[in-house]
Protein backbone atom coordinates (compact mmCIF):
# COMPACT_ATOMS: atom_id res chain seq x y z
CA UNK A 1 0.00 0.00 0.00
CA UNK A 2 1.24 3.47 -0.82
CA UNK A 3 1.83 5.72 2.12
CA UNK A 4 0.07 9.02 2.48
CA UNK A 5 2.23 11.01 0.12
CA UNK A 6 -0.79 12.65 -1.44
CA UNK A 7 -2.89 15.04 0.59
CA UNK A 8 -6.43 13.76 1.26
CA UNK A 9 -8.99 16.05 -0.37
CA UNK A 10 -12.22 17.02 1.34
CA UNK A 11 -14.20 15.18 -1.31
CA UNK A 12 -12.22 11.97 -0.81
CA UNK A 13 -12.57 12.22 2.94
CA UNK A 14 -16.33 12.80 2.76
CA UNK A 15 -16.72 9.81 0.44
CA UNK A 16 -14.74 7.57 2.80
CA UNK A 17 -16.62 8.92 5.79
CA UNK A 18 -19.99 8.06 4.26
CA UNK A 19 -18.83 4.67 3.01
CA UNK A 20 -17.68 3.68 6.51
CA UNK A 21 -21.14 4.48 7.88
CA UNK A 22 -22.87 2.74 4.98
CA UNK A 23 -20.68 -0.39 5.05
CA UNK A 24 -21.37 -0.92 8.77
CA UNK A 25 -25.07 -0.92 8.08
CA UNK A 26 -25.07 -3.01 4.93
CA UNK A 27 -22.92 -5.75 6.43
CA UNK A 28 -24.79 -5.94 9.72
CA UNK A 29 -28.09 -5.83 7.81
CA UNK A 30 -26.94 -8.73 5.65
CA UNK A 31 -25.87 -10.70 8.73
CA UNK A 32 -29.13 -10.14 10.57
CA UNK A 33 -31.04 -11.12 7.43
CA UNK A 34 -29.67 -14.65 7.89
CA UNK A 35 -32.22 -14.99 10.71
CA UNK A 36 -35.09 -14.61 8.26
CA UNK A 37 -37.10 -17.82 8.62
CA UNK A 38 -34.92 -19.02 11.50
CA UNK A 39 -35.99 -16.72 14.37
CA UNK A 40 -36.76 -18.33 17.73
CA UNK A 41 -40.41 -17.27 17.34
CA UNK A 42 -42.37 -15.87 14.42
CA UNK A 43 -42.61 -12.47 16.11
CA UNK A 44 -38.88 -12.24 16.75
CA UNK A 45 -38.19 -13.41 13.22
CA UNK A 46 -40.18 -10.41 12.02
CA UNK A 47 -38.40 -8.07 14.42
CA UNK A 48 -34.93 -9.14 13.26
CA UNK A 49 -35.89 -8.99 9.59
CA UNK A 50 -37.31 -5.56 10.27
CA UNK A 51 -34.10 -4.31 11.86
CA UNK A 52 -32.19 -5.86 9.01
CA UNK A 53 -34.27 -4.01 6.42
CA UNK A 54 -33.89 -0.76 8.33
CA UNK A 55 -30.10 -1.12 8.30
CA UNK A 56 -29.98 -1.97 4.60
CA UNK A 57 -32.26 1.00 3.95
CA UNK A 58 -29.90 3.31 5.84
CA UNK A 59 -26.97 1.92 3.85
CA UNK A 60 -28.79 2.41 0.55
CA UNK A 61 -29.48 6.07 1.28
CA UNK A 62 -25.85 6.61 2.30
CA UNK A 63 -24.52 4.83 -0.81
CA UNK A 64 -26.75 6.97 -3.02
CA UNK A 65 -25.25 10.05 -1.45
CA UNK A 66 -21.76 8.58 -1.75
CA UNK A 67 -22.33 8.08 -5.49
CA UNK A 68 -23.40 11.69 -5.77
CA UNK A 69 -20.29 12.92 -3.98
CA UNK A 70 -17.99 10.62 -5.92
CA UNK A 71 -19.55 11.77 -9.20
CA UNK A 72 -18.17 8.97 -11.36
CA UNK A 73 -21.43 7.55 -12.62
CA UNK A 74 -21.74 4.84 -9.94
CA UNK A 75 -24.95 3.99 -8.13
CA UNK A 76 -25.74 2.42 -4.74
CA UNK A 77 -25.53 -1.10 -6.23
CA UNK A 78 -21.98 -0.49 -7.32
CA UNK A 79 -20.87 0.10 -3.74
CA UNK A 80 -22.76 -2.91 -2.41
CA UNK A 81 -22.06 -5.46 -5.11
CA UNK A 82 -18.95 -4.54 -7.04
CA UNK A 83 -16.36 -3.81 -4.39
CA UNK A 84 -14.13 -6.47 -2.82
CA UNK A 85 -13.49 -7.18 0.84
CA UNK A 86 -10.48 -4.88 1.06
CA UNK A 87 -12.62 -2.00 -0.22
CA UNK A 88 -15.17 -2.49 2.55
CA UNK A 89 -14.51 -0.39 5.63
CA UNK A 90 -17.19 -1.73 7.96
CA UNK A 91 -16.41 -2.57 11.57
CA UNK A 92 -15.33 -6.15 12.14
CA UNK A 93 -18.06 -6.25 14.78
CA UNK A 94 -20.65 -6.14 11.99
CA UNK A 95 -19.24 -8.99 9.89
CA UNK A 96 -18.89 -11.66 12.61
CA UNK A 97 -21.11 -14.72 12.01
CA UNK A 98 -24.58 -14.44 13.47
CA UNK A 99 -23.93 -17.00 16.23
CA UNK A 100 -26.88 -17.92 18.42
CA UNK A 101 -29.80 -15.59 19.13
CA UNK A 102 -28.02 -14.16 22.19
CA UNK A 103 -24.92 -13.35 20.16
CA UNK A 104 -26.96 -11.54 17.51
CA UNK A 105 -28.80 -9.59 20.20
CA UNK A 106 -25.61 -8.72 22.10
CA UNK A 107 -23.94 -7.49 18.91
CA UNK A 108 -27.03 -5.52 17.87
CA UNK A 109 -27.22 -3.89 21.27
CA UNK A 110 -23.55 -2.87 21.21
CA UNK A 111 -23.85 -1.52 17.68
CA UNK A 112 -27.13 0.29 18.37
CA UNK A 113 -25.81 1.84 21.59
CA UNK A 114 -22.86 3.24 19.67
CA UNK A 115 -24.96 4.29 16.64
CA UNK A 116 -27.42 6.11 18.85
CA UNK A 117 -24.83 8.48 20.33
CA UNK A 118 -22.98 8.70 17.01
CA UNK A 119 -26.12 9.77 15.16
CA UNK A 120 -27.18 12.16 17.93
CA UNK A 121 -23.93 14.02 17.21
CA UNK A 122 -23.96 13.56 13.43
CA UNK A 123 -27.42 15.06 13.09
CA UNK A 124 -25.84 18.49 13.74
CA UNK A 125 -23.57 18.05 10.68
CA UNK A 126 -23.09 21.10 8.51
CA UNK A 127 -24.52 19.45 5.39
CA UNK A 128 -28.25 19.56 4.98
CA UNK A 129 -28.71 16.45 2.87
CA UNK A 130 -26.48 14.40 5.15
CA UNK A 131 -27.95 15.61 8.44
CA UNK A 132 -31.48 15.16 7.07
CA UNK A 133 -30.71 11.52 6.37
CA UNK A 134 -29.15 11.03 9.80
CA UNK A 135 -32.19 12.55 11.53
CA UNK A 136 -34.54 10.27 9.64
CA UNK A 137 -32.56 7.13 10.46
CA UNK A 138 -32.10 8.08 14.11
CA UNK A 139 -35.73 7.24 14.88
CA UNK A 140 -35.21 3.67 13.72
CA UNK A 141 -31.91 3.40 15.59
CA UNK A 142 -33.71 4.35 18.80
CA UNK A 143 -36.07 1.46 18.20
CA UNK A 144 -33.23 -0.99 17.49
CA UNK A 145 -31.60 0.09 20.73
CA UNK A 146 -34.80 -0.34 22.70
CA UNK A 147 -35.53 -3.77 21.24
CA UNK A 148 -32.01 -5.16 21.66
CA UNK A 149 -31.59 -3.64 25.13
CA UNK A 150 -34.83 -5.21 26.37
CA UNK A 151 -33.61 -8.57 25.07
CA UNK A 152 -30.23 -8.19 26.78
CA UNK A 153 -32.06 -7.61 30.08
CA UNK A 154 -34.26 -10.67 29.55
CA UNK A 155 -31.50 -13.02 28.45
CA UNK A 156 -29.03 -11.82 31.08
CA UNK A 157 -31.55 -11.90 33.89
CA UNK A 158 -33.40 -14.91 32.46
CA UNK A 159 -32.57 -18.58 32.85
CA UNK A 160 -29.18 -19.91 33.88
CA UNK A 161 -28.54 -21.00 30.30
CA UNK A 162 -29.56 -17.71 28.68
CA UNK A 163 -27.43 -15.84 31.22
CA UNK A 164 -24.35 -17.93 30.48
CA UNK A 165 -24.77 -17.81 26.75
CA UNK A 166 -25.21 -14.06 26.47
CA UNK A 167 -22.34 -13.49 28.89
CA UNK A 168 -20.12 -15.57 26.59
CA UNK A 169 -21.33 -13.53 23.62
CA UNK A 170 -20.38 -10.25 25.27
CA UNK A 171 -16.99 -11.67 26.29
CA UNK A 172 -16.38 -12.74 22.69
CA UNK A 173 -17.58 -9.46 21.17
CA UNK A 174 -15.67 -7.21 23.52
CA UNK A 175 -12.40 -7.08 21.60
CA UNK A 176 -14.25 -5.67 18.59
CA UNK A 177 -15.42 -2.59 20.50
CA UNK A 178 -12.15 -0.65 20.33
CA UNK A 179 -12.78 0.08 16.66
CA UNK A 180 -16.00 1.90 17.42
CA UNK A 181 -13.97 4.87 18.58
CA UNK A 182 -11.22 4.68 15.95
CA UNK A 183 -10.33 7.97 14.27
CA UNK A 184 -7.86 8.90 11.56
CA UNK A 185 -7.11 11.65 9.01
CA UNK A 186 -10.54 11.12 7.41
CA UNK A 187 -12.30 11.98 10.67
CA UNK A 188 -9.98 14.89 11.37
CA UNK A 189 -10.66 16.48 8.00
CA UNK A 190 -14.41 15.94 8.32
CA UNK A 191 -14.41 17.46 11.81
CA UNK A 192 -12.71 20.53 10.32
CA UNK A 193 -15.45 20.70 7.70
CA UNK A 194 -18.12 20.70 10.40
CA UNK A 195 -19.48 17.32 9.31
CA UNK A 196 -17.48 14.71 11.18
CA UNK A 197 -17.63 14.06 14.91
CA UNK A 198 -15.00 13.37 17.52
CA UNK A 199 -15.73 9.94 18.99
CA UNK A 200 -13.93 10.83 22.23
CA UNK A 201 -16.72 13.33 22.98
CA UNK A 202 -19.33 10.60 23.39
CA UNK A 203 -17.22 7.56 24.24
CA UNK A 204 -18.13 7.80 27.93
CA UNK A 205 -21.83 7.98 27.11
CA UNK A 206 -21.63 4.80 25.04
CA UNK A 207 -19.65 2.97 27.72
CA UNK A 208 -22.04 4.07 30.43
CA UNK A 209 -25.10 2.87 28.55
CA UNK A 210 -23.46 -0.49 27.86
CA UNK A 211 -22.15 -0.86 31.42
CA UNK A 212 -25.48 0.11 33.00
CA UNK A 213 -27.40 -2.29 30.79
CA UNK A 214 -25.08 -5.23 31.46
CA UNK A 215 -25.19 -4.58 35.19
CA UNK A 216 -29.00 -4.35 35.13
CA UNK A 217 -28.99 -7.64 33.24
CA UNK A 218 -26.87 -9.15 36.06
CA UNK A 219 -23.96 -9.64 33.64
CA UNK A 220 -20.25 -8.98 34.15
CA UNK A 221 -18.86 -6.02 32.27
CA UNK A 222 -15.69 -7.20 30.49
CA UNK A 223 -12.55 -5.08 30.69
CA UNK A 224 -12.63 -2.00 28.42
CA UNK A 225 -8.82 -1.91 28.53
CA UNK A 226 -8.34 -5.43 27.20
CA UNK A 227 -6.74 -6.20 23.83
CA UNK A 228 -8.79 -4.74 20.98
CA UNK A 229 -8.87 -5.64 17.27
CA UNK A 230 -8.16 -2.95 14.69
CA UNK A 231 -7.82 -2.29 10.99
CA UNK A 232 -11.30 -2.46 9.51
CA UNK A 233 -11.51 1.22 8.59
CA UNK A 234 -8.49 0.54 6.35
CA UNK A 235 -10.01 -2.58 4.83
CA UNK A 236 -8.50 -5.19 7.16
CA UNK A 237 -11.12 -7.78 8.04
CA UNK A 238 -11.73 -11.11 9.70
CA UNK A 239 -11.98 -14.22 7.52
CA UNK A 240 -15.75 -13.96 7.72
CA UNK A 241 -16.32 -10.95 5.49
CA UNK A 242 -15.23 -12.66 2.27
CA UNK A 243 -17.79 -15.42 2.72
CA UNK A 244 -20.53 -12.94 3.47
CA UNK A 245 -19.71 -10.93 0.37
CA UNK A 246 -19.55 -14.05 -1.80
CA UNK A 247 -23.08 -14.90 -0.81
CA UNK A 248 -24.36 -11.34 -1.05
CA UNK A 249 -22.68 -10.41 -4.32
CA UNK A 250 -22.60 -13.51 -6.50
CA UNK A 251 -26.04 -13.15 -8.05
CA UNK A 252 -25.53 -9.52 -8.92
CA UNK A 253 -22.12 -10.22 -10.38
CA UNK A 254 -23.47 -13.14 -12.42
CA UNK A 255 -26.10 -10.82 -13.92
CA UNK A 256 -24.46 -7.41 -13.78
CA UNK A 257 -26.92 -5.79 -16.19
CA UNK A 258 -30.10 -7.23 -14.67
CA UNK A 259 -32.71 -4.69 -13.63
CA UNK A 260 -35.80 -4.77 -11.40
CA UNK A 261 -38.45 -4.42 -14.07
Amino acid at each position, binding site marked *: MSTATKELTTKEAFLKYILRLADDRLILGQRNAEWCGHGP*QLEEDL*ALANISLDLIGHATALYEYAAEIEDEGHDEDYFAYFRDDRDFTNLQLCELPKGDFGFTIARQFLFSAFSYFQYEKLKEADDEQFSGMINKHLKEIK*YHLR*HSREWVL*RLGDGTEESHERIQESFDELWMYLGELFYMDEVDELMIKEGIGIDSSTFKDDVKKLIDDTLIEATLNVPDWDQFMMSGSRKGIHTEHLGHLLAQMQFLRRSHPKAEWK
Partner: protein
Amino acid sequence: MSDKNEHKDNWPLWEVFTQPKSGKPHEHAGSLHASDKEMALQNARDTYARRNEGVSIWVVESKHITASTPDDMGPFFDPANDKPYRHPQFYSVPRAVKKRS
Protein backbone atom coordinates in the same frame (compact mmCIF):
# COMPACT_ATOMS: atom_id res chain seq x y z
CA MET B 1 -40.52 -8.21 34.54
CA SER B 2 -41.74 -10.70 37.09
CA ASP B 3 -43.85 -12.54 34.52
CA LYS B 4 -41.00 -13.29 32.15
CA ASN B 5 -40.11 -16.79 33.29
CA GLU B 6 -43.61 -18.12 33.65
CA HIS B 7 -43.84 -19.73 30.24
CA LYS B 8 -40.93 -21.94 29.56
CA ASP B 9 -41.84 -23.43 26.22
CA ASN B 10 -44.34 -21.10 24.66
CA TRP B 11 -44.79 -17.40 25.02
CA PRO B 12 -48.31 -16.36 26.01
CA LEU B 13 -50.78 -14.98 23.51
CA TRP B 14 -51.60 -11.26 23.40
CA GLU B 15 -54.35 -9.32 21.64
CA VAL B 16 -53.32 -6.16 19.84
CA PHE B 17 -55.42 -3.04 19.38
CA THR B 18 -54.28 -0.15 17.23
CA GLN B 19 -55.70 3.35 17.06
CA PRO B 20 -55.75 4.67 13.49
CA LYS B 21 -55.95 8.35 14.48
CA SER B 22 -56.08 10.20 17.74
CA GLY B 23 -59.68 10.53 18.87
CA LYS B 24 -60.69 7.31 17.07
CA PRO B 25 -61.32 4.12 19.04
CA HIS B 26 -58.64 1.43 19.29
CA GLU B 27 -59.52 -1.46 16.99
CA HIS B 28 -58.57 -5.10 17.24
CA ALA B 29 -55.68 -5.70 14.85
CA GLY B 30 -54.85 -9.32 15.64
CA SER B 31 -52.85 -11.37 18.08
CA LEU B 32 -49.26 -12.43 18.69
CA HIS B 33 -46.95 -14.25 21.05
CA ALA B 34 -44.61 -12.40 23.41
CA SER B 35 -42.71 -13.15 26.58
CA ASP B 36 -44.07 -10.15 28.52
CA LYS B 37 -45.86 -6.83 28.08
CA GLU B 38 -42.92 -4.74 26.87
CA MET B 39 -42.00 -7.34 24.25
CA ALA B 40 -45.67 -7.67 23.29
CA LEU B 41 -45.74 -3.95 22.57
CA GLN B 42 -42.57 -4.18 20.50
CA ASN B 43 -43.77 -7.23 18.59
CA ALA B 44 -47.07 -5.45 17.95
CA ARG B 45 -45.15 -2.54 16.49
CA ASP B 46 -43.28 -4.88 14.16
CA THR B 47 -46.28 -7.02 13.24
CA TYR B 48 -49.16 -4.56 13.03
CA ALA B 49 -47.77 -1.05 12.73
CA ARG B 50 -45.20 -1.23 9.96
CA ARG B 51 -47.39 0.40 7.35
CA ASN B 52 -48.40 3.56 9.12
CA GLU B 53 -51.49 1.95 10.62
CA GLY B 54 -51.81 4.04 13.70
CA VAL B 55 -50.79 6.41 16.43
CA SER B 56 -51.22 4.20 19.48
CA ILE B 57 -51.09 0.51 20.39
CA TRP B 58 -52.69 -1.41 23.24
CA VAL B 59 -51.74 -4.97 24.09
CA VAL B 60 -53.54 -7.19 26.55
CA GLU B 61 -52.83 -10.79 27.38
CA SER B 62 -55.56 -12.85 25.73
CA LYS B 63 -56.35 -14.75 28.95
CA HIS B 64 -57.56 -11.51 30.52
CA ILE B 65 -60.35 -11.11 27.99
CA THR B 66 -63.76 -12.39 29.04
CA ALA B 67 -65.83 -13.17 25.98
CA SER B 68 -69.45 -14.10 25.37
CA THR B 69 -70.07 -17.60 24.05
CA PRO B 70 -72.29 -18.73 21.13
CA ASP B 71 -74.79 -19.91 23.78
CA ASP B 72 -75.15 -16.34 24.93
CA MET B 73 -76.33 -15.21 21.51
CA GLY B 74 -80.04 -15.62 22.21
CA PRO B 75 -80.30 -13.93 25.60
CA PHE B 76 -77.67 -11.29 24.72
CA PHE B 77 -78.71 -10.12 21.30
CA ASP B 78 -82.18 -11.33 20.27
CA PRO B 79 -84.18 -9.03 22.57
CA ALA B 80 -82.81 -6.07 20.61
CA ASN B 81 -84.28 -7.36 17.31
CA ASP B 82 -87.69 -5.81 17.76
CA LYS B 83 -86.61 -2.57 19.35
CA PRO B 84 -85.70 -0.36 16.43
CA TYR B 85 -86.41 2.70 18.57
CA ARG B 86 -83.06 2.09 20.24
CA HIS B 87 -81.38 3.31 17.06
CA PRO B 88 -81.13 7.07 16.62
CA GLN B 89 -82.19 6.59 12.98
CA PHE B 90 -85.63 5.57 14.25
CA TYR B 91 -86.42 9.18 14.95
CA SER B 92 -86.94 11.78 12.27
CA VAL B 93 -85.06 14.95 12.86
CA PRO B 94 -87.26 18.06 13.18
CA ARG B 95 -86.82 20.48 10.29
CA ALA B 96 -85.65 23.30 12.55
CA VAL B 97 -82.80 21.17 13.87
CA LYS B 98 -81.81 20.01 10.35
CA LYS B 99 -81.52 23.61 9.18
CA ARG B 100 -79.11 24.55 11.89
CA SER B 101 -76.69 21.74 11.18
